């Protein structure tokens, strides 16, 4: 029988646009130090390490985790890296959960870290075009990279196809309001890259088009930083919790799905994010959740783009497909509404340090469940071309 697994410690570094003061070695250790301190255990008590690092080119080395394994005190122990595009962090949590649940280890470190803005474009003398080029190497190398595939244009394909089917949904004034709302929520996250960048819906509407239909203030920002969790199987988790006085937040459901990366008959339906649908519903099933609208209190959602946040909420079954704007129109995610969505500010305002992002989301969900005395949260990561990959976890606070 599989074992219950819970989060007993968590820590993050500040998320910043650039960490000139640190390499990814130090960022990885900073988050790990915070997580074991939070758990109240020495690193020697951690049995295995699961690394979420997305892109070798960002770290400027293949097998980037080998250099940090010893630096984190994990010498001679199990270590494995997960890399699944934007969903890297969430998939890393899933992987660690599987090993602990199977009884291979009693405790595990889940560490996400990413440097991004060391990349620099000397032709435009700015980092961003080179950062998005680096991500652009993730597109299909035979058919799509050569014609300008990018993460933004590939997600825009999905969003526009959704809008083809649901022309009244994802209205510009609603996406602007959601971005503005997230910018208010980030004020409480002292680790966020844009803690003090509050924007009005009008500012969002006025911001420049980057990739149609996405405007600059509707897109996540590139970030450098790290996030870490300490997971433990049930008996160990309870013992750690008794010592440190912090309740265990249990991972009661996990689910993952990867779609086809090409569109057409028998392949990807561009108007859906089926990976979000399957992953979330598999996690619900494992957690015994029959009706997510009645169970989910907090959603820490990978908001690469505001429009995708809305579609993802629909694929999770929290609003009807085609009526995602009810998130704002019916007050479902406005202050005091039914769902608390991205209290950390999401990846748009806290920042997107790719491998670390979803682990930061889990850090936030766990903290919010405890702080607000709420019961259930959904954590989500999306990635790869055309929102192809998803991993989700249901977190529960007893």
């Amino acid at each position, binding site marked *: 029988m599989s074992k219950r697994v819970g989060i007993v410690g968590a820590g993050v570094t500040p998320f910043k646009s650039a960490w*000139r*003061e640190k390499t990814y070695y130090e960022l990885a250790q900073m988050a790990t130090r915070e997580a074991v301190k939070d758990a109240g255990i020495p690193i020697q008590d951690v049995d295995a390490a699961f690394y979420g690092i997305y892109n070798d*080119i960002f770290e*400027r080395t293949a097998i980037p985790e080998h250099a940090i394994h010893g630096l984190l005190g994990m010498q001679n122990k199990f270590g494995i890296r997960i890399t699944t595009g934007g969903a890297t962090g969430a998939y890393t949590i899933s992987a660690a959960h599987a090993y602990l649940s199977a009884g291979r280890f009693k405790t595990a470190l889940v560490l996400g870290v990413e440097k991004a803005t060391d990349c620099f*474009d*000397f*032709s*435009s*003398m*700015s980092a*961003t*075009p*080179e950062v*998005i*080029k680096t991500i*652009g190497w993730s597109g*299909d190398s*035979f*058919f*799509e990279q*050569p*014609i*300008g*595939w*990018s993460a*933004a*244009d590939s997600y*825009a*394909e999905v969003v*526009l*196809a959704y*809008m*083809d089917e649901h022309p009244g949904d994802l209205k510009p004034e609603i996406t602007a309001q959601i971005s503005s709302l997230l910018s208010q929520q980030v004020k409480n996250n002292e680790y966020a890259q844009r803690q*003090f*960048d*509050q924007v009005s819906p009008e*500012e969002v509407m*006025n*911001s*420049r*088009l*980057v*990739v*149609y*239909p996405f405007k*600059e203030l509707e897109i996540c920002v590139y970030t450098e930083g790290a996030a870490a969790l300490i997971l433990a199987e049930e008996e160990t988790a309870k013992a750690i919790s008794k010592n440190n006085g912090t309740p265990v937040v249990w991972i009661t459901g996990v689910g993952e799905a990867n779609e086809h990366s*090409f*569109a*057409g*008959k*028998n*392949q990807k339906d*561009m*108007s859906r994010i089926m990976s979000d649908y399957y992953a979330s519903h598999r996690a619900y099933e494992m957690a015994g959740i029959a009706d997510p609208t009645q169970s989910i209190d907090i959603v820490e959602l990978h908001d690469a783009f505001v429009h995708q946040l809305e579609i993802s909420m629909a694929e999770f079954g929290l609003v009807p497909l085609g009526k995602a704007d009810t998130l704002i129109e019916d007050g479902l995610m406005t202050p005091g509404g039914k769902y608390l969505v991205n209290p950390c500010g999401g990846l748009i305002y806290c920042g997107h340090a790719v491998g670390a992002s979803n682990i930061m989301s889990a850090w936030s969900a766990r903290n919010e469940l405890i702080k607000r005395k709420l019961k259930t949260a959904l954590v989500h990561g999306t990635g790869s071309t055309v929102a192809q990959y998803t991993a989700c976890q249901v977190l529960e606070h007893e």
Partner: protein
Amino acid sequence: MSIQREKVIPAKYIPDVGSYVEKIDGKDYLITNDAMHTFYRRSKGELSPFFLGLRDEKKLFGCRCTKCGLVRVPPFLTHCPDCNFAPTELVEVEQVGVMNSTPPITYFATSLFQHMAPYGRGRVIFQGADTALSVNLYTTTGILVPGIIKKGTEVKLVFRDNRIGEMTDVFCVPTAELSKEQIEKKGLQESEINWESPVEPELPAASQEDTAMYNKALAEMKSIIEEMNTNERARKDIAGWKRDILVKTRGGEFAIIIDDGDIKLEEEAPSSPDFVMVCDDPNILLDGLAYRGAITDSVINKKLWISKNMEFNTIFKLDRMARSVARSKKA
């Protein structure tokens, strides 16, 4: 429309060997120019017939499953995963198709594609195919704007004059912009199409009112640009960037000079501008600089004309500076 072939890595992308020190909170940090480069002689393997078809025969190939009959374009399979890996066979498909969904348009491109922006990329289901091929999309009428190509729009595959056996050998344009003969012709090439070339808009003569409006807008722009020049965040946005811009409006002409972190407005036109900006109403540019709307969007909406598409880069930087000043005020 033609793509200029260069080295695999164009020289402008390659920095000199070197390093510098960045000071943060009184401490020195060493920053080094660097690259991670790998060259390839990469085989197209089983995809070779498809790419040779584009390069040499101007044909579009797919693969048909011998069991279920599904035709996949591109033909990236020799065996069908839906039929327990039954073999597939190569088939030619038509060069007219429809958009599988509305395509995105990229305005802010990666460093590799800035010369191409703005560009559309979308998926086309060609006649005879069941799956969609990812292609670049253009209009013959100038800058691609939302609404020209949508889900269901019929498009024609066009071959570049110079082809190397890559997906860049082809692109699509709406059939509505072509003649019947062009639509029916297999292997239609870019040089067989009339492309509207950008022409600098002519401005009408200014009335006294226009001149007064221009003078007012000019004074405001001057003040905003002076503020930008003293804003640390905004100055960082144009670090390493140098451009002399000639701005033409109905009321008069002036220059915006960007020089590696410095920006200034000069009332005299520059002797050899890097590019020209034309906007009938000077308030369009004023609003952008004042963060009351994006200059990028004014270019897209044809309220502001620029003489070189590549200079979208400079436009982005001006938009970024406007936001930087606004952000600094909040902080």
